[in-house]
């Protein structure tokens, strides 16, 4: 395993940075570029821009934000939301993204995972999974920001995606997202122990302890943080200091 990464996740409804609860009830936070800058300066290891309306309304306005960000921010950047084809991926990479995340398009046509991995490399192909618990130890894959069911089981879907060439899983708990009550550690642990690619835990972080636990006990390779950063509950350097104290080696 490489060093755990602290990732700032910025959900975008262009031109704004927004934040919801359980991926709904969206609130405008501010200018995405300013927040991206702030997190870069705090020591974020990566940024994720997720266009949360693009897959509904078929828009790609997020690329302007990515392009501007890439001029000032020198850490890896993942872009998701509304990517439906290899040529959409190409546009995102050309705008300055290093990786792309797909969800709906992969559910509709899983071969897209193979196509992206073959063309740009597995390291570029992040599968975004919105997971909602439906029974003890079982989660269903959702899309369209946790609104649409797919009938797919999370575990079989991530395994299929890995076989097809996904290089990383961005795992968002729809149940915990925006609640600040903690990650879904049972879900994270199950997925992280079932695939051999990095798993980014997303959704629910509300305290330093949550972030430490998900790395230590659920084997997550990275945490994606939105709420706690946007509302200034704590800064990335504070999380890293707390992780060091907990004997987790992170980039300083």
């Amino acid at each position: 395993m490489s060093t755990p990464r602290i990732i700032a996740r910025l959900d975008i409804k262009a031109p704004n940075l927004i934040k919801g609860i359980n991926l709904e009830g969206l609130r405008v936070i501010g200018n995405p570029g300013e927040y991206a800058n702030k997190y870069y300066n705090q020591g974020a290891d990566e940024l994720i821009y997720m266009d949360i309306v693009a897959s509904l309304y078929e828009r790609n306005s997020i690329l302007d934000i990515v392009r501007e960000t890439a001029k000032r921010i020198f850490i890896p950047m993942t872009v998701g939301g509304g990517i439906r084809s290899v040529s959409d991926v190409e546009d995102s990479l050309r705008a300055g993204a290093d990786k792309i995340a797909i969800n709906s398009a992969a559910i509709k046509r899983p071969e897209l995972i193979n196509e992206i991995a073959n063309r740009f490399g597995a390291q570029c192909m992040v599968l975004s999974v919105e997971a909602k618990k439906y029974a003890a130890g079982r989660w269903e894959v959702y899309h369209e920001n946790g609104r649409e069911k797919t009938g797919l089981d999370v575990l079989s879907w991530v395994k299929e995606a890995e076989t097809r060439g996904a290089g990383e899983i961005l795992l968002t708990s729809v149940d915990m997202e925006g609640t600040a009550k903690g990650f879904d550690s049972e879900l994270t642990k199950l997925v992280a122990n079932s695939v051999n690619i990095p798993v980014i835990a997303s959704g629910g972080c509300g305290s330093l302890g949550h972030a430490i636990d998900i790395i230590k006990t659920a084997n997550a390779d990275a945490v994606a943080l939105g709420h706690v950063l946007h509302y200034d509950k704590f800064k990335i350097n504070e999380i890293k200091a707390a992780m060091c104290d907990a004997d987790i080696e992170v980039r300083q």
Partner: protein
Amino acid sequence: MKEICVVDYGVGNLFSVAHALEECGVNVKFITRPEDILSAGKLILPGVGAFGDCIGEIRKRGLDEAIVEYAKSGKLLLGICVGMQVMMTKSFEFGEHAGLDLISGTVEKISPTKANGDSHKVPYVGWSKLQVAADFIRFDKVREEWCYFVHSYMAKPENPTDIKAHYDYNGQKITAIIAKDNIIGCQFHPEKSGLVGLNFLKNIINN
């Protein structure tokens, strides 16, 4: 304003590298022709993807001899990622491919097992802390040198003193920087390694 030339041979996205160099206060010029390589004052050779594809494009465009000739001039040549790997004698990525042979040695796959025999992930993607040789002074030493890597293959120079930095991957020493005279290569992406990466570029350009 200082100028730095970046070889554009049709592979990968050069904008991140260009933005990072601009942030370092230099003017970036993309060049595509052998004569531009020969007349460059400082040269960067980027590269992503497979070794064979990169060296193939360089040869197809007739840039290989110009790069070798340029390297003899004593002017700065910096190879980044696969741009560093192509400076080696040969690579074993998807068959055997001859490189530019500016630094003697091979490019070989990162072992998929840890020192204790357990498997670990290859490609390696992530941040690693460099162990830098004492005679290589291109970092500011104000903080730990954490850099961002994405790779499955690594350079193995014949002469160990050509290795100027490495990182540890579960007990395996992975080459991070090679250098010989005016030739420097880095496996990590300085353009994605935050302030450490920018300072590395600045120090190389100004040295």
